[in-house]
């Protein structure tokens, strides 16, 4: 990807079509690595792809060859089961060569089933046990502010995940400490493992909940790249409180046989499904 030769920092992309093309490539990588691994979470990786791509390629500062560079913006995938999404993006961004993706979920692979910060530099914290990422993001936002470091913190949560009580502890903390260097995104795909979120444990009215916790709340179509960019800009402009983007998404987005299907939460594509999926994504 494009890089500023002088600083080693990533160039930021604002062109919606280029971002959509990156998102398409990321989806292809996700599907291929999941099929190769033979297990893993397809639906939730695809639903959050557009938002995560926008964050990584239009907003964040980082140096893939120096993952612990202090000036970097931080990204936490609180819904850690979407690890394939994070790995595909990191490969796309140049953290490691794309063939490493073939080792997903293998013994001693840097690509553990859920992100492990000790195995893969560039992963900020190990996630997988849902409900914990926002607290860590808050701690980072507090630490950066103490250091007068202008870096920002991004955190993606699942809509089922926010049933965890700790998320609401963290929601209080971010607002109490006025963490305006923090932007959370809820991947509101309406599904969790056992069914529809509204049937398993209703989270609505979800916008009102975050509002009442003192957050700046933005609702968007989480697959509309322009809306995502505008929301991320608005988050950055918002001072004195944290921002949450409630991104309405489709689980399994981009592959018709996986879209909005609860069965595709935690299963990888079969080889014949992959073939079909790649065709839909224009990758043959």
């Amino acid at each position, binding site marked *: 990807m494009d890089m500023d030769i002088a600083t080693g920092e990533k160039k930021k992309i604002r062109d919606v079509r280029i971002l959509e093309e990156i998102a398409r490539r990321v989806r292809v990588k996700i599907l291929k690595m999941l099929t190769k691994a033979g297990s893993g979470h397809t639906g939730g990786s695809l639903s959050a792809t557009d938002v995560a791509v926008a964050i990584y390629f239009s907003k964040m500062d980082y140096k893939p060859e120096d993952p612990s560079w202090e000036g970097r913006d931080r990204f936490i995938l609180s819904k850690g089961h979407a690890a394939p999404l994070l790995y595909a993006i990191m490969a796309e961004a140049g953290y490691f060569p794309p063939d490493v993706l073939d080792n997903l979920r293998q013994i001693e692979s840097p690509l553990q089933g859920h992100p492990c*910060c000790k195995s893969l530099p560039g992963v900020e*914290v*190990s996630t997988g*046990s849902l409900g914990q990422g*926002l*607290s860590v*993001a808050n*701690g980072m*936002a507090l630490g950066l502010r*103490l250091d007068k470091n202008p870096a920002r913190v991004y955190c993606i949560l699942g809509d089922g995940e926010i049933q965890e009580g700790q998320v609401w502890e963290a929601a209080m903390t971010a607002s109490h400490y006025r963490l305006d260097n923090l932007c959370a995104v809820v991947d509101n795909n309406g599904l969790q493992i056992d069914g529809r979120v509204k049937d398993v444990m209703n989270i609505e009215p979800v916008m009102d909940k975050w509002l009442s916790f003192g957050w700046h709340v933005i609702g968007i179509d989480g697959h509309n790249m322009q809306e995502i960019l505008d929301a991320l800009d608005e988050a950055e402009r918002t001072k004195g409180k944290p921002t949450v983007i409630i991104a309405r998404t489709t689980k399994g987005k981009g592959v018709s046989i996986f879209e909005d299907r609860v069965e595709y939460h935690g299963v990888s594509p079969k080889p014949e499904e992959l073939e079909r999926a790649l065709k839909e994504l224009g990758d043959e």
Partner: protein
Amino acid sequence: MNKATRQAYGEVLVELGRERPEIVVLDADLSASTKTNMFAKEFPDRFFNMGVAEQDMIGTAAGLALTGKIPFASTFAVFATGRAWDQIRQTVCYSHTNVKIVASHGGITVGPDGASHQALEDIALMRALPNMTVIVPADAIETKAVIRTIVDHKGPVYVRLGRAKVPTVMPDDYKFSIGRAFVFHMGSDVNIIATGIMVEIAKRAIEILSADGLDVGLINMSTIKPLDEEVLLTAARSAKAIVTAEEHSVIGGLGSAVCEFLSERHPVPIRRMGIQDSFGCSGPAEELLRFHGLTVESMVETVKGMIKS
């Protein structure tokens, strides 16, 4: 000098706060009890009250550590280790973040608040976690030495402190290092391996036992993980039997750790003094110790019993 280990913690945190700007402190609405309120008063910008939210406190501490801070997170031991165990597992131990969990109110000497507030399983819970270091200081002197040491140790640490005032047992010039036990004396009849307040109780028991002509050793095993294996082997070889003593369940704590190690490396007869797989209850600290058999008299009896058999 009688001083609670939590009081010593509050004091040393303030001293360290002046020396080390990267130290930050978190508490979950118990800062007056854990004594982190002393730090809060002097460094309000580096103190974060998280409210009654232990899980969030641990995650936030991990995040602060990931930006280069040295966070000390404090609350009662029962909540720190029980309520936030998975958070400690995932974001502290598995992520290997530089978080210091210093919990007060360990053991039954919490007293009148009763079982809900008496952590008797915290050492077991923390000891089972990879990457975790577990330390139980015996008195105020050791507490200060421990806190000063762990600031420079990179990685997760759990320190268990007590509510009650305890007499000084460690020498003034005591130097602590992680994983090194303090040997008061190696005995030839029985060696007592104690931790926390049981060190002082053992000291008094040994006075009685030596008056009876018995050579009983005393080791302060303040670091429960990693164990000082060398000292343990010497203790097992030099005496005929071992007695472990802790203000914690006999399941999973110091006694278990010692048994696990010695049964593989140098099996000897061992008796574990501690809470015998039960919850605590309300009462004055001294009476509770008596109720649970954690007294000088019962230690004397236990040691004599071992020598007879």
